[in-house]
Each structure stands twice: as structure tokens, then as C-alpha cells.
């Protein structure tokens, strides 16, 4: 047991967290304008965009993985373009994982931010416009500071969800050590070769970390909600 712990390879964990951190950062930047648009629009296109955004929640990861693999591979126009003109291969490497994770985790970032924006008092935003402030100034100085709990939830859930993904990364990335072999894939392989001891240790680490992350989010949100309780 102790020997196993000493020989434990942490590379899959580091890879998982690196992937999750980059994905979260990219999605945060993409989702802010998207969530703002969805929260403010009454356009007929809104339900379509919302449905497309939410698709990764209901689709089997293998479906997403399959189509991402299909459209990014060298046989597809997109994959061929990137390979030919930019010299970048998009599948079976870390870049491919990031792209796939961004699709897979998109709803987990967009939805909490959107509902945060929707919960804002509309008159408060209008008061900002009347005060002479542009939409951008209103978003950064009024809207975002008032939805901190939603932002935190979105960031943490997206991060955690990306750490926890399996099907999509396996299909798009395979299992190349230090490149695409993330923790969930590593555990799967340990079980396959019946190395249950390592699988237990890896899984226990995942469980403890996930619990601690979620616990801290809920504690933070409880504090914030208490702070805002006096506001009516």
C-alpha cells in the first residue's frame, strides 16, 4: 500500500486539472457575452440557441466525442485546414481535449451565469443606462458584481465537470501518457488491467477533492446569501 502510494504517478491528475483550468478560463470568456445576450433578448432565436447550448447535458458523451473526432480529424475540412495552414493537429492531443471539453462543459458555464443575469433587477440595469453608462460599463460595474454567487457556481461546476469527464476525452484524446491520459481515463485503465489498489487510491483522491471543492462552494454561497438576505 505504502509502496504503491510512493510510486503513484500524479501526471494524470495534473493533466486533469490543467485541462479543467484552461477549459474553465476559455468558457468563462465565451460564456459571459453569450449568457448576457440570452438573458436580455426576447428574440425568436433564443430558444434555439438555448437548446443547442444545453445539448451536451442530454447527449451521450460518445455522441459528442464521435462528432468532434469526426469534424476535427485530418479527413474533415476543419482538421485538414488546421493541419495544412497552421500545422496544428486537433485530435489525439491536448489541444483536441481542450476543444472537446469546451463543447462538453459549455452549458455548465452558460446556464448559471444566464440565470444570474436574469435574476437581476431590470430597473437597476436601466438606472445604470440612464446614469449615462454604456452596456459594457453596466455589465462590468453593476451586473457582474451583483451575481458573484452565480459566477462562482459556474466556474466551480464547469471545472469539476471537466475534471469528471470521461467518454469525450477517451474518444477525442485516447490515452497518451502526459498528453491525453487524464485521471478518469487512468482509473478506467487500472480497472481494466485489474490493478484495483491503484484504482482505489486514484478514485479516493477524486472523491475527496470533489467533495472539498463542492463543500467550499456551498459554504461560500451560504455566506453570500446571508449577506444579501437583508436586501429586498
Amino acid at each position: 500500500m505504502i509502496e504503491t502510494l510512493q510510486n503513484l504517478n500524479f501526471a494524470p491528475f495534473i493533466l486533469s486539472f490543467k485541462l479543467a483550468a484552461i477549459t474553465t478560463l476559455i468558457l468563462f470568456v465565451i460564456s459571459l457575452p453569450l449568457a448576457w445576450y440570452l438573458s436580455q433578448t426576447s428574440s425568436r432565436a433564443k430558444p434555439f440557441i438555448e437548446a443547442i447550448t444545453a445539448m451536451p447535458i442530454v447527449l451521450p458523451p460518445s455522441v459528442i466525442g464521435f462528432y468532434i473526432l469526426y469534424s476535427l480529424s485530418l479527413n474533415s475540412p476543419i482538421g485538414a485546414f488546421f493541419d495544412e495552414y497552421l500545422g496544428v493537429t486537433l485530435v489525439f492531443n491536448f489541444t483536441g481535449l481542450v476543444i472537446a471539453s469546451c463543447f462538453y462543459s459549455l452549458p455548465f458555464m452558460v446556464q448559471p451565469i444566464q440565470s444570474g443575469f436574469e435574476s437581476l433587477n431590470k430597473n437597476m440595469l436601466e438606472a445604470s443606462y440612464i446614469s449615462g453608462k454604456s452596456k459594457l460599463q453596466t455589465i462590468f460595474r453593476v451586473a457582474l458584481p451583483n451575481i458573484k454567487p452565480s459566477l462562482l457556481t459556474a466556474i466551480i461546476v464547469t471545472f469539476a465537470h471537466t475534471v469528471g469527464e470521461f467518454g469525450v476525452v477517451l474518444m477525442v484524446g485516447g490515452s497518451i501518457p502526459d498528453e491525453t491520459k487524464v485521471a478518469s481515463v487512468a482509473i478506467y485503465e487500472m480497472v481494466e488491467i485489474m490493478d484495483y489498489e491503484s484504482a482505489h487510491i486514484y478514485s479516493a483522491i477524486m472523491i475527496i477533492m470533489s467533495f472539498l471543492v463542492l463543500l467550499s462552494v456551498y459554504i461560500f454561497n451560504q455566506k453570500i446569501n446571508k449577506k444579501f438576505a437583508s436586501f429586498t
Partner: protein
Amino acid sequence: MIEIDICKKLLGAKGEMHLDVDFNIKEKDVVALTGESGAGKTTLLRILAGLEKANGIIKVDDEIWLDNKFSLPPQKRRIGFVFQEYALFTNMSVEENLLFVNNDKEFSKKLLKMTNLYELKNISVTKLSGGQKQRVSLCRAMMNRPKLLLMDEPLSALDPNMRTNLQQEILTLHKEFGTTTILVSHDISEIYKLSNRVIKLHFGKIVADGTPKDVLLQMSGNEKFSFSVEFLEINRVDMTYIAVVVVGGQLVEVVVNEREAKELKVGDMMSIKVKKNHY
């Protein structure tokens, strides 16, 4: 001088309706906009603020805010807007709410002192009472020295004492800055105290326009005289109800019937009429 001539189709509770109004406002006037709910009062304010679209013309002095081709965005209209539910920036302190509009510390200090809020300037607005919140909202609306101040039932969420205090503060601010104001209100005493002109809307059309007395006191021909009084309290003496009212600084007792006794609220304005008696 503000010229307003606008038209907009609205979907109200009673089906489709056209807001169609045409009137001018003189500088420094305080116009009370009244009428039953759904008459289009709030929509009219929102159109003036540029928050809703409409057809027609809005001209303020020589500046066009709205015509058939153009609509000046709310950011550029230089208006103050006081919402019924305050709509303060909840992530900021009292002073920050004011400075967000216009980073003029001297002016914000002056406004906060005038409304007795200066001691609270560093407190988060979420910690304030309703009356304090609405005072902050009022100060915030004044921060960009607006050409037009719009108030949408600003005092309707407050208790009677707080209302009286805030009415006084609105008067003080108006005296100091002379801002042209449009105030939506249902409260007759408020309209009396604050405005010098009343416009009554009904289904999107102006049905009355004049001084508060002309519009609110519809006197019929056989009254010898009529005067307006403010109601203070009610006492029951045996089977009758006696209302104490104040008129011209004097207290007067008036007999009222049971139904009136139940409906009267402290601060209500009434008109007392003396009719001809035929013996």
C-alpha cells in the same frame, strides 16, 4: 420647455390600447401624472427616459430626443429616474451609488447632507430602510443635474410618516435645483403638495389637464364654498365619527359617516364643501 407628442400601441389587461398624448411642459414645472393603473403612466415615463420605443416627437429645449427617424439613447438624455422599488446598485455603498453617476464628490456631499444621509455614506445600500433607500435613489437621480426628473410612484412603498418626510425632501430639492419633474402618483395629498399641474390619463388619452385643484376637486354648481383639508385622526363619539382635519394651520372637527371613517387614512386630503340649505 419640453414638447411631447407620442403614440404607442400597448397591450394592456383590457386588450389593445393606444397611448396617444400631446402636451408641453414648462421649465421648472412639477407635473403629476395620475389615472387608474394600466392607463399608460409608467409607459409614458419609460418612453420619455428612452427605455421604450414609440412613434412621435420629444423635444427638450432645442434638443430632439425622439422623432420619426431618431431616438436619443437613454445614456445621452440627461434624465433622473426614481423607480418605485429604488433600483439602487446593490453592490455599492450609499456614496458610491451617487458617484457612479457622476464622480463629483462635492455635489454628492451636498445632496447627502440635504437629505440627512451623509452619516450613512459608507454603508451598503442593502442595509438601509425603505425610506432611506428612496432618498438615496432621489439623490442619485439628481447627480447628473438632470433636465428632466421622472418619478414613478416614488413613495407608494413607504409608510405615511416616511412619505411626509420624503415629500418635504422632494420639495426642498426642487426648490434648490428647479428641475422640471414628472411624477406618477395616485396619492391626492402628494399631488397637492408637490405638483403645480396635474395630467390625468385614461386608456392612454389625456382626460384632464390643469391645476391640482381644478382636476382633483370636481366641484358642482350648488356649493357655496369648498376647501381642501388634510385628515389627521378620527374619534368615535357615541354613534358618530368625528374627524380631526387641518385647514390653513387650524384644526377643525368634522362629522363623517361610518364608511368614510373606515376609508380615511392619515395624511389624506379631502375637500370639505358647504351646500345650500333650503328651509
